[in-house]
């Protein structure tokens, strides 16, 4: 098990209130595989430094979780398949 920090940029046309439940849906894969989600921090709408998929804004969310490497890989894959997600980034904070 390893600690991960995942940052997600979601489509700004989504409702900010629906972000938390829809993220939880994705994070179910972590819980099912024996991992745990420590914190889900939704930053809310924020201006992007440059356009991503012709959008000038994005909804940012940061998730702290503990899981197996394979689980995180699967989570990342599923997130990237979703149309409402512009970008993801997985980091391991203790490596630095």
């Amino acid at each position: 098990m390893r600690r991960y920090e995942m940052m997600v940029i979601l489509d700004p046309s989504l409702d900010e209130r629906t972000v938390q439940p829809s993220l939880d849906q994705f994070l179910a894969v972590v819980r099912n595989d024996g991992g745990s989600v420590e914190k889900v921090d939704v930053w809310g709408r924020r201006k992007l430094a440059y356009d991503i998929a012709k959008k000038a804004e994005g909804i940012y969310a940061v998730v702290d979780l503990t899981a197996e490497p394979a689980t995180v890989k699967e989570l990342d894959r599923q997130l990237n398949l979703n149309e409402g997600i512009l970008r993801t980034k997985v980091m391991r904070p203790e490596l630095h």
Partner: protein
Amino acid sequence: MAKPAVRKPKKKVCLFCHDKISYVDYKDTGLLRKFISDRGKIRARRVTGNCTQHQRDVATAIKNAREMALLPYTSTAR
């Protein structure tokens, strides 16, 4: 006879060593903005005064922040 200009540059102390910050967070854009120019370029070590290790950490953090559109790759300020 022109006097040779004697420059005594003030020795800069690395901000991170001074504050004892070990992890440079890519999410802290306010801090990272101090280390980029108004065009979005990463400032050189001789300008920032960072130590070798922390300059490297800052550069990596800035690059990570750029990937997530927190900081610009380029900004056309002029």
